[in-house]
């Protein structure tokens, strides 16, 4: 059986998205900047897509900018808010330790340019609090950026509460909603979100298409200079097929959101129950306040990459936060921020489901996984020491 359980990494394009895209390769092939009819047909498609995102996010179309993906949207959001802050003499930014690298590495770059960054600690349940944000905001804070849902452990952050704290303090609030968009309700008005990033390939849209929502009145800084596309804020001929596919996928995901969550939640909980029934394993992140398709657990005494390879040999595609899967010597910064010791963080497994997964697939994972964990433990000198009592079990 082949099971794709890495939907947090990326998803397959939905039929609806593909159907929407296909005409944009040949029939609607004009450049939206062109005056002629083929160009104007493409421009119409572009604006239709913009309206779909605006409607679903409770924004207005002019607040929607298309980018090359979540990373670009994150970079542009942070740079824009930082530039605006600098003009007012405010150069302090608040974020969290478990953001995606698209955020963290942009913040590192900003630090080198003279900004000061406070990264909030991650509580054991993987949910930061609005109070933590409130306590970190200073006179010179120009931006708070907290992800909507974490990409590794799936925990959902109290975005509306954080939005309220920021609005009250007069600080811009950005959220990286790449993992949440299409999966959780988002209302930028109600949640008081000033800037938001999302990425189409996480909800069955195409790769390489992102959206940056920016509240009216907040000026964007260009990352890419050139033509006047996207109101001059993002140069380059628009990826019409990609943008149209992204909008179709988003529309579909939002329309089916409740249905998908109702389908996925019991499957997720079944996986969580099965994984944590394995001795010396632990769930990462709160059991309830997490994305409907996210499961992330650590198994003591084994290493994640070998676990992934053996799962792959059985047809199961998953992900891990082990160092050996990242090419660095350190395991996932998210698991470390959550307080998992290095040796435990190396043995992590993320299974991320989508509505395309079938209940039998969950049974199959649960059938195969315990044996693989045991096999690796039997090979592991660490497990031997744990069992012999030569080193204490951590979990």
């Amino acid at each position, binding site marked *: 059986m082949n099971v794709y359980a890495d939907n947090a990494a990326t998803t397959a394009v939905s039929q609806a998205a593909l159907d929407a895209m296909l005409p944009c390769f040949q029939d609607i092939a004009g450049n939206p900047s062109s005056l002629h009819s083929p160009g104007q047909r493409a421009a119409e498609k572009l604006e239709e897509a913009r309206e779909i995102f605006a409607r679903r996010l409770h924004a207005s179309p002019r607040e929607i900018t298309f980018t090359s993906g979540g990373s670009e949207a994150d970079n542009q959001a942070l740079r824009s808010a930082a530039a605006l802050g600098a003009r007012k003499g405010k150069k302090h930014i608040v974020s969290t330790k478990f953001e995606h690298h698209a955020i963290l590495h942009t913040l590192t770059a900003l630090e080198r340019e003279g900004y000061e960054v406070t990264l909030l600690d991650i509580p054991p349940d993987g949910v930061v609090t609005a109070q933590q944000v409130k306590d970190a905001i200073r006179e010179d804070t120009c931006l708070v950026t907290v992800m909507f849902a974490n990409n590794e452990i799936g925990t959902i952050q109290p975005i509306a509460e954080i939005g309220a704290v920021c609005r009250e303090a007069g600080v811009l609030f950005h959220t990286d909603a790449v993992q949440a968009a299409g999966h959780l309700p988002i209302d930028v008005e109600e949640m008081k979100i000033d800037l938001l990033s999302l990425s189409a390939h996480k909800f069955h849209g195409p790769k390489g298409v992102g959206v940056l929502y920016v509240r009216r009145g907040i000026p964007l800084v260009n990352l890419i200079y050139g033509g006047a596309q996207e109101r001059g804020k993002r140069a380059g001929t628009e990826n019409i097929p990609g943008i149209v596919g992204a909008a179709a996928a988003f529309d579909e995901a939002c329309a089916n959101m409740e249905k998908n969550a109702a389908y996925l939640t019991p499957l997720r909980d079944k996986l969580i129950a099965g994984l944590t029934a394995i001795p010396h394993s632990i769930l990462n992140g709160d059991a309830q306040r997490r994305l409907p398709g996210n499961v992330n657990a650590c198994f003591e005494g084994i290493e994640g990459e*070998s676990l992934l390879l053996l799962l792959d040999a059985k047809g199961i595609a998953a992900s891990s936060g082990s160092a050996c899967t990242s090419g660095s010597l350190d395991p996932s910064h998210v698991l470390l921020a959550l307080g998992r010791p290095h*040796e435990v963080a190396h043995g992590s497994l993320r299974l991320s489901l989508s509505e395309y997964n079938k209940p039998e697939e969950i049974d199959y994972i649960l059938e195969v996984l315990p044996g693989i964990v045991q096999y690796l433990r039997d090979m592991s000198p660490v497990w031997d020491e744990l069992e012999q009592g030569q080193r204490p079990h951590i979990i």
Partner: protein
Amino acid sequence: MALYSDKVMDHFQNPRNVGKMDDADGIGEVGNARCGDIMRMYIKVDPESQTITDVKFNTFGCGSAIATSSMATELIKGKPISQALQLSNKAVVEALDGLPAYKLHCSVLAEEAVKAAVKDYYDKNGIAYGPELQSCDGDCESCGVEH
């Protein structure tokens, strides 16, 4: 996965000489769980010929750590200690038809584990050895040796 050669996958999925050895003459453990890879090697030595008659390993680590452990045991089994000590991680990697560049650090442990096992055997039997065996205490973080 095309990440690894067929040889690596074979040694990873069907590791040779894996397991504990209760009557080992020398045991070497290198790496630490912090770094993500630990290798423990057991050797049985024929005192007359100073030959490694049997070898086993236990490894905590990624696919390349397990595959290099397995290959290293094959390369030293039945060999005189003097020859086993010549084993380089480069030779292990070559025997596996290569590893991705960022995975080479995971292969270093195999060479170190063999040396650590021999050192343990020498220590237990009061056999003198040179400084090249003294450097490895099995802890990657305190190890100043270039690999």
